């Protein structure tokens, strides 16, 4: 039987699995494989982990109820931890150890999770391939000549080679779903406001959510249950008790699949047929009028917010700081030498989008576009779950996509929609083509995560594609 986070948790609870043995085996695997995959930016020391295990054991002994005691969790390096550096994949935050924990980190610690390390990402989550990290690119464990997707490529890869049970990424425009589909893992972008962003180093605040990842939908449900919920430290956090029903119908706007590469299209249609055979109604007549506006709307808003968020990195409050005779010189040098090219480019575009002469045609226009897209998606997801490709292409080769910005941005066409509309979306394995994973995306109405999880559980029963570890 395959090891799942669910089954490991059972064994830990029964006492038939020694936490130390289990975690140290993971550490060993990381030592063996991560010099090639490069899923992690930093790893806990053994002493730290031993202390943590003892703490969890004490809590168990004292009768504390915890949701994930002993499970090994990796966390994207743009989520603040006060015990490990948090770099956001950037040189500009090298050696920065936040003086506080993100709310989700507090929750994971509270529920007994063992945070083993911080995972690689595109610098400040700006990318779709995890090639833009200042700490080296991450490779796809299924084919190390290919990218794992991004920007949460480190989290996806850390799961795909089995170095942890659960992971947290962040999803601004597809940043957990794209990597999930490229690594045969599962990623859920939750409804905007359901997971606290307190402690998430922002790229585009109005679009992103901290997002759980796992190797199966059932495992994902474990960590989802830990991290969700209202947080008064985040003013955009939503206090919601919505319970979704578990009746579902699937609909498919053609635009969401048709432009994908043929193997992706055929894999998804075949899977949909099987799902239909299980008694789920599928409607193939859907339309999505405003898809053409999705990418420019998304990127305009993301750039504008990013330019603002990244203004603070000027060398005065963080360990990295350039020399300079004046503050102006110091801040210019710090930003010049410690931001990567892609980040600087996006800042520049954001400043353009917000500047006096252009704000109406760019930023304001995009916020209007966002409203019509959101309204169309809310309407579409009112009665059905929208199925689509996650990515229009198979996992690209390293270096293949990053030279041309438009080709890179086009990878996000199917995923940005959920962020623009704020709705939840789940990416999970649909099949393989030439040993390369292919994913499927399900997008539901606001606060319908439970519905997505039920559908996802059904789909993984149908495909049998869960708890897959590359190289097993």
């Amino acid at each position, binding site marked *: 039987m395959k090891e799942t986070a669910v089954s490991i948790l059972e064994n830990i609870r029964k006492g038939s699995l020694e936490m130390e043995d289990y975690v140290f085996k993971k550490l060993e695997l990381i030592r063996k494989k991560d010099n090639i995959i490069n899923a992690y930016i930093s790893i806990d020391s053994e002493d730290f982990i031993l202390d943590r295990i003892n703490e969890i054991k004490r809590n168990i002994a004292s009768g504390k109820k915890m949701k994930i005691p002993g499970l090994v969790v990796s966390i994207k390096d*743009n*989520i*603040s931890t006060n015990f490990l550096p*948090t770099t*956001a994949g950037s040189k500009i*935050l090298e050696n920065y150890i*936040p*003086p*506080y924990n*993100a709310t989700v980190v507090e929750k994971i610690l509270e529920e007994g999770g063992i945070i083993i390390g911080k995972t690689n990402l595109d610098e400040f989550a700006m990318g779709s391939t995890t090639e833009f990290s200042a700490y080296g690119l991450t490779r796809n464990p299924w084919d190390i000549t290919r990218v794992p997707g991004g920007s949460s490529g480190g989290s996806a890869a850390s799961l795909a080679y089995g170095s942890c049970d659960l992971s947290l990424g962040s999803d601004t425009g597809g940043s957990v779903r794209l990597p999930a589909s490229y690594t045969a893992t599962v990623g859920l972008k939750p409804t905007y406001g359901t997971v606290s*962003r*307190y*402690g*998430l*180093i*922002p790229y*585009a*605040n*109005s679009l992103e959510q901290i997002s759980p990842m796992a190797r199966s939908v059932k495992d994902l449900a474990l960590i989802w249950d830990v991290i969700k919920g209202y947080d*008064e*430290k*985040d*003013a*955009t956090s939503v206090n919601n008790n919505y319970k979704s029903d578990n009746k579902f119908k699937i609909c498919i706007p053609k635009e969401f699949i048709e432009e994908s590469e043929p193997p992706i299209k055929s894999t998804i249609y075949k899977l949909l047929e099987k799902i239909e055979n299980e008694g789920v109604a599928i409607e193939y007549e859907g339309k999505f009028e405003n898809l053409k506006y999705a990418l420019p709307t998304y990127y305009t808003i993301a750039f*504008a*917010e990013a*330019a*603002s*968020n990244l*203004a*603070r990195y*000027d060398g*005065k*409050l963080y360990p990295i700081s350039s020399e300079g005779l004046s*503050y*102006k010189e110091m*801040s210019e040098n710090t930003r010049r030498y410690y931001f990567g090219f892609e980040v600087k480019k996006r800042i520049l575009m954001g*400043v353009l989008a*917000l*500047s*006096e002469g252009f*704000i109406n045609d760019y*930023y*304001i226009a995009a916020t209007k576009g966002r409203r019509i897209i959101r309204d169309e998606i809310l309407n579409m997801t009112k009665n059905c779950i929208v199925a689509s490709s996650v990515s229009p292409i198979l996992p690209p080769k390293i270096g293949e996509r990053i030279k041309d910005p438009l080709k890179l941005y086009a990878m996000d066409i199917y995923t940005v929609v959920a962020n623009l509309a704020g709705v939840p979306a789940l990416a999970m394995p649909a099949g393989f083509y030439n040993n390369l994973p292919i994913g499927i995306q399900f997008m539901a109405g606001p606060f319908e995560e439970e519905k997505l999880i039920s559908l996802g559980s059904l789909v993984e029963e149908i495909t049998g594609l869960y708890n897959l570890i590359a190289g097993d």
Partner: protein
Amino acid sequence: MKYKIGLEIHTQLSEAGTKLFCDCDSNYRKYEPNTNVCPVCLGLPGALPVPRRNPLKLALLVSKSFNCEIPEFMVFTRKHYFYPDLPKNYQITQYEKAGGIPVCLKGILKYFDSDHLTWKSVTLRRMNIEEDPGKTEYSGGNILLSEYAYLDYNRSGVPLLEVVTEPEIPTPRDARKAVEYLLLTMEYIGAINPRLEGSFRVDANVSVEGGERVEVKNIGSTLDLEKALKYEIFRQSKIVEEGGKIKRETRHWDSIRGVTKPLRSKETEEEYLYFPDPDIPSIKTEPLLKEALSSNFMTPENFMNRITMYGVSQRIAWSLITVKPAAELFLESVRIGSDPKITARILAIDYKGLLKKSGKNIYEKSNWPNKQILKLLSTLVSNKLYTYDELKYNILPKLLENGNDMNLVLPEKVEPTNLIISVINEEKKAVEDFISGKREALDYLVGKVLKKAKGKAIDPKTIRKMIEITLTKH
């Protein structure tokens, strides 16, 4: 020469308790540098601003007090510029273009001109809530030449209320009175302690006829405001009279030398990349305002109406109002039966004078007597048990010394006739001098009588009159 004055007044909501977006203390002055800071006011990556209730409620009360149009929602925006004291290199404010909505859109600042004892008003363009930056110190104190700057973020995030008037204030004196009244109102609301160092700063813009607008930045007191405006109007008028042109520029007020100095010329509007802060949803004003109004609060104008209703003159009433504990004490003691005019005179003039002379803080409530004592004292005078001067010279100083202990305070009343007769008998020389026409001798004789009374209640004016009558009879 005609001119126009407009003001931008940055007032700290120093009494809000919390900073605008975090729990750190709004009164930062008592802390060691950088110890009143948290991830939010340091702008650390991932920390999120959550507007706090108190600063918003106070800002709404101020808006309400000046008859503002209060929008249904407030929306915060980001204003970007690089500066060391700005941790995020943007300031969260409420700019009304680019999607922001301020707390007050249009209002009227009605203020009391205590020189002419009349009410006047100036139109408010808007008020917005924003975060104060941190503090920058320069080595050697020189902002231009200093090699290093030293940053203290204790002030970062303290709530500021920016009040912007239309350029329609008639004189520098009026500018001063208007700002003083604004601050007083905010003090009455419990929003600010205007006597705290740096609790407000004023930027003033002045344009004389035929010239462009000049902005004078960073004026730290109302006295300086009047001086800076007088100077600036003089400077600009002179240039225009000599045929020169006034260009649009920003100047800096040098309070030590008493002059304005050029800071930078402003050719175009600066680019601040404003947009609504995506971390902060809009905030409905109505429930907050309702909550804020449920606490009892009165503006200085309300006080003025109440106090003058009791027959107290506007001048004395204003003197009470400028010291909040005195005005409050007046109403409290009148409510339990104190004589209004006598009480007003005690509080507004004589006891206030004594407090000041003794170096005690007149704004500290505990330095004032309690309302029962005031009632007793004013009744003693109104019932003619003592004259007002007896009260003033014999009782009030003792009250100041002994606090509220009545037994120590009330002096024994003495019959002055015997004292006068014995002084006249002892001071033959002075009596002769007086009779021969030396008026100063009378003062001497009054002094002698007072000395004999040994601090017992006695009214110098009465004594004077009595001696005069006695000696003229001779």
